[in-house]
């Protein structure tokens, strides 16, 4: 409901001439801004807040972004020998241990109470803090994931949309390419490419690792575009003489957004798995770069497997990987509901028909999650 509402709001704004006699009452500028805010910010937030999965996913993703952006300033850089070797997590007990210190810090000339952390998650076998390593690895991880997501989305939607919209020989050719890329087994190719190029830059690494990810999205988008092209409302919009960009923005994009989100998140997840795996195998160059995979590798090869002393060294990066990828998946599922107009309508205050399909929300099939790596 709210989506149709938004279209009419937008149409009033953009469409001069056209069918100007639809409504007598016009919205003031303030009203229009308020409605747009409500539509694009408040309603999605309400949807997210009312769905447990979306809430957890958003929380995890936001936390990781915060850790990636602010973390490196708050947490000391991991250095060899900054603490004792193989210190356990929460040294001295969770409460009253020596892993935290109540002190004070000066913020803008005012002294405020502050908690200083001393290697709360323990240290590795050369005395580097585990938490410190995890935190300092996060920015590169996020850069890599973001570049992979962007690359996959741009290439996947472009190829899929062109292929579905243009059709004919172009479609045939692009589909063949997509099929070939889909059948190539990813990891062996990545192993070789990575050995060949030795990428250090996280952006480049993200793109290399997602070289296959776009194909799945292209296929999904293509079939969606094929279906959408012939729907009556798109034909109607075309008959009304709306420009192609307008049709794409208002009719096509909201419909393919869930597919974009799911495929993008899947690609991101695969990039996380692949990069950590390759770092674990020691095939990606790292000299001073900390990475969760490098941590896993070091913990694995330095006896983390054999003694309980080093268990935290192995488990902390594992938990980070799982939480990040889980956060992304849940976030994407939550976004699925944000883009679903029926769910949104229930949470939108401006479009006030709340009695619409109370249980429709529960019947929307859950988005399926792809197989393993």
């Amino acid at each position, binding site marked *: 409901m709210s989506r149709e509402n938004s279209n009419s709001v937008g149409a009033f704004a953009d469409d001069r001439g056209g069918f100007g006699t639809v409504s007598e009452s016009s919205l003031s500028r303030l009203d229009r801004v308020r409605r747009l805010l409500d539509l694009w910010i408040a309603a999605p937030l309400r949807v997210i807040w009312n769905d447990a999965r979306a809430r957890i996913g958003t929380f995890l993703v936001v936390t990781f972004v915060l850790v990636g952006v602010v973390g490196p300033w708050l947490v000391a850089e991991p250095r060899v020998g900054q603490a004792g070797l193989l210190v356990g997590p929460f040294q001295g007990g969770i409460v009253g241990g020596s892993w935290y210190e109540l002190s004070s810090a000066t913020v803008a000339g005012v002294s405020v109470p502050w908690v200083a952390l001393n290697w709360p998650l323990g240290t590795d076998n050369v005395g580097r803090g585990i938490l410190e390593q995890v935190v300092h690895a996060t920015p590169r991880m996020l850069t890599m994931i973001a570049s992979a997501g962007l690359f996959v989305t741009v290439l996947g939607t472009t190829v899929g949309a062109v292929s579905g919209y243009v059709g004919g020989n172009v479609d045939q050719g692009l589909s063949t390419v997509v099929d070939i890329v889909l*059948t190539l087994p990813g990891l*062996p190719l990545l192993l070789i*490419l990575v050995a060949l190029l030795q990428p250090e830059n996280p952006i480049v690494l993200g793109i290399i690792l997602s070289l296959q990810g776009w194909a799945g999205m292209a296929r999904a988008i293509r079939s969606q575009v094929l279906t959408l092209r012939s729907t009556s409302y798109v034909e109607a919009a075309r008959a009304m003489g709306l420009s192609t960009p307008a049709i794409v923005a208002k009719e096509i994009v909201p419909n393919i957004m869930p597919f974009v989100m799911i495929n993008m998140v899947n690609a991101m997840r695969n990039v996380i798995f692949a990069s950590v795996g390759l770092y674990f195998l020691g*095939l990606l160059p790292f000299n001073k770069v900390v990475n969760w995979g490098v941590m896993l590798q070091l913990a694995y090869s330095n006896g983390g*497997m054999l003694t309980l002393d080093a268990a935290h060294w192995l488990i902390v990066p594992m938990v980070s990987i799982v939480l990040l990828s889980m956060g992304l998946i849940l976030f994407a599922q939550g976004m699925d509901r944000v883009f679903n107009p029926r769910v949104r309508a229930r949470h939108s205050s401006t479009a006030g028909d709340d009695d619409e399909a109370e249980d429709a929300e529960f019947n929307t099939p859950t988005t399926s999650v*792809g197989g*393993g*790596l």
Partner: protein
Amino acid sequence: MYEYFVKRTGQAIFTAFVVITLSFGLVRLMPGNPADQLRGQLIRNNPDLSQQEINRRVENYINIDYSAPLHEQYLDYVAGILRGDLGRSISQNAPVSEILGQALPWTVFAFSVAILLMFAVGIALGAIMAYQEGTRFDVSTTGIGIVLNSTPNYVTALLFLYVFGFTLGWFPTSGHISSQVVPVVNPLRPVATFQFVADAVYHASLLIAAVVITGFGGVALAMRGNSIQVLGEDYLRVARLRGLSDTRIALRYVARNAILPMYTGLLLAFGGVIGGSAILEQVFTYPGLGYYIVAAVEGRDYPLMMGGFVLITLAVVVGAFIADLTYGLVDPRVTTGGDGS
């Protein structure tokens, strides 16, 4: 159907051709030219070889004669692969085809068992979840499925290795069979054969468990979604009104329609999982295809590396080809031309 067959065969051949070309290009583009590297290595190890002998050896190893013009190099390379000649491994000093030929059955064995188990568990669980949609069982299983699905299989593998391999000592931590077991598969010697198979399963069990545990969640969620969709169809209501038994409805109507779309997923999973075998086999020191590829990349053993890549890729291409051709057998709608364009 005939037209589709021709088209699909053409596509498979074209894909194989692209893969081989890609591998040729990759070898040629390798930094520090593998042929020169190899030549240097040979000269260092055997100083009394003549230039000609060295050239011949290099060609023998990497299947590419760098002195010939590019198109001849390419044709020779393709012809070599078609004859099954993948060159000679530098680090193992044996023909690549031999090494990979020995490794391949182990990878195929371990991962087929793993994937079939994963799908069996996932499908059964997904169907139960769909029937009990909205119950506490459904909600909690969905949650567990998402968590397990967010875990890379090598993380689970490391944990299993740590807990069951090293700490508890219940399972072996490396290798594919015990050293004292003789590998025989012979119906005339059932005891030895059984011992061998049991030992192989025992050695692969942690690897299989790691794949199944991390993979079944995704399968179950997909199956749940499909089943719920089928459960809402009109023909199901008709079937109930006709008074068909619940078992018949569950198996012939719901299960069949819900599983069909996952058939291609199964075969794609094979490609993905076997492709991802490298890391798992490394963790368990399980000498399969992936293990050798990683070893080759680490040791810059170009012939073994490219051979492994070509072999895995061709295996996946053939697998996908067979899948697409047999899909008609599983789903009659394709053969009758319902929507099988």
